């Protein structure tokens, strides 16, 4: 597709989405908000995990800090929601720089394990902070209507995706991709690897934090356990990888596809839903290990052989 046509069709899809609160049922709108927030999280994970090649398990910390930024600003200081988002994003960026500098020196599994601990640490810290309501949490002022949150979440996904689209064709993004592909070679070619990695981490922290802030205000309740949930981090990684890490639309497709599958399973066969969800993911990883975006790109050329090739390539 021509870039202009691609852009126009993407704009059309966003336009149609924006009308959902006008005609959709309450359930659909709420499902939409959740899916859009997960899509934002998967997309921002895509910046550090997909493009830079650093599989972060610390993104749920950014999400939690964003939530607490909003909650503390609104409950303790009676500030506006917008100021709360700014506070949350600022906290997340500071955290990204502070933690990113030491942790981004580690690679692969070591990086994953180091970031895995961050959520636990934050839960412990926040549980003991008076201003954050200790382990009881904070109750936010009641907000008006789901439509606003739907549009906010949609706008956030769009901004995050535009940022990723810019990354994929910019000098900055090529630096990140070079780091993912071979960090030592990237450095020798003039990429300031430390700076680029920390900037990528900080960039993805902003979007995750804003997503956390919107979610907290929507749910109107926040406690340390749900704010810094590692399971959420696992979810965003699965969605990004299912859709296609390091692609512009993959994580969005992954987030929507998996949200829909888990929603359908949960409503039809409640108790076994998580087992079926697990099966779907295993099958997806076996048959399309490079994600949905790669499938779409190559299925037209290879047809069903695409799945065979993947099976062969990975010796399953």
């Amino acid at each position, binding site marked *: 597709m021509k870039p202009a046509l691609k852009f126009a069709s993407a704009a059309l899809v966003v336009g149609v989405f924006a009308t959902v609160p006008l005609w959709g049922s309450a359930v659909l709108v709420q499902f939409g908000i959740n899916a859009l927030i997960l899509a934002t999280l998967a997309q921002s994970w895509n910046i550090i995990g997909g493009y830079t090649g650093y599989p972060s398990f610390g993104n749920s910390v950014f999400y939690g800090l964003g939530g607490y930024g909003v909650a503390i600003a609104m409950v303790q200081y009676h500030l506006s929601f917008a100021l709360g988002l700014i506070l949350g994003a600022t906290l997340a960026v500071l955290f990204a720089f502070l933690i990113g500098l030491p942790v981004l020196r580690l690679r692969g599994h070591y990086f994953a394990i180091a970031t895995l601990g961050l959520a636990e640490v934050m839960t412990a810290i926040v549980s003991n902070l008076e201003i954050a309501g200790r382990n009881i949490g904070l109750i936010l002022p009641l907000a008006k209507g789901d439509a606003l949150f739907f549009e906010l979440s949609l706008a956030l996904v769009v901004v995050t995706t535009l940022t990723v689209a810019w990354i994929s064709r910019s*000098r900055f993004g*090529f*630096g990140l991709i*070079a780091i*993912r*592909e071979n960090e*030592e070679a*990237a450095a*020798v*070619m003039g990429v300031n690897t430390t700076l680029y990695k920390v900037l990528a981490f900080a960039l993805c922290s902003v979007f995750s934090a804003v997503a956390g802030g919107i979610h907290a205000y929507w749910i109107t309740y926040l406690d340390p356990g749900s704010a810094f949930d590692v399971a959420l981090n696992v979810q965003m990684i699965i969605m990004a990888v299912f859709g296609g890490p390091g692609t512009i639309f993959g994580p969005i497709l992954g987030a929507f596809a998996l949200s829909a599958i888990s929603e359908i399973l949960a409503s039809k066969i409640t108790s076994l839903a998580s087992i079926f969800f697990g099966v779907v993911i295993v099958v997806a990883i076996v048959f399309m290990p490079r994600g949905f975006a790669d499938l779409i790109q190559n299925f037209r050329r290879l047809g069903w052989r695409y799945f065979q090739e993947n099976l062969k390539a990975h010796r399953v």
Partner: protein
Amino acid sequence: MDTILEVRNLTKRFHGLQAIDRVTFTLERNQILGLIGPNGAGKTTLVSLVSGTLQPTEGSVLFEGKPIHRLAGFRRALLGIARTFQVMRPFPGLTVLDNVAVGALFGAAGSARQLAAARENANRWLHFVGLDHRARQRADALGGPDRKRLELAKALAMRPKLLLLDEVMAGLNPVEIEEVITVIKKVRDQGISIVVIEHVMKAIQSLSDRLLVLHHGEKIAEGKPEEVLRNDQVIAAYLGSKRR
């Protein structure tokens, strides 16, 4: 003459191992220095110390008169130093063209900063090394000789002033070696100074203005190729000492 690179008393120790031992040499602008020595002599280590992949234990490296041995690798790349790796390090998931485009996007100051311009640049360098027909393939689809060409194109796209080539001819057949020699000479004609590590004697003799011989991390000889290759110590290092 105008000195581009000056290495003084450069030393690198890995724990107990003395990899490079007080090596001193200079490289004049627009010259080719051949770096030879048996396996394990420290040739790659020396190149890594100049390119910033490794930091020296002692001694100094001056580039255009300024000390650079404490600078990070990427800063040296921005100053105009490029290297290739003996064990090739392409960006496997990127196309051949984009591999080279990274060099044009980053590299020495004044390179292309926009993707479109960088790709255009990259195309020219691929043509220069004879790899333009594979521009759209993924880098990990390339075979050995083409990977060597890619390493060279990536380094050239950085528009360096000093190019460090670590065995770009290893594993090539005689025809391919001739091609690479022609390319390297063309590079020098563009005003780039070059350090070449090579085991192919004929190639290094025909390329180098001067030769430097390393053995156990020490410089054992330096000078014009024909003189150095007659040196008894050099012959002993390569072929074992003469029987008495």
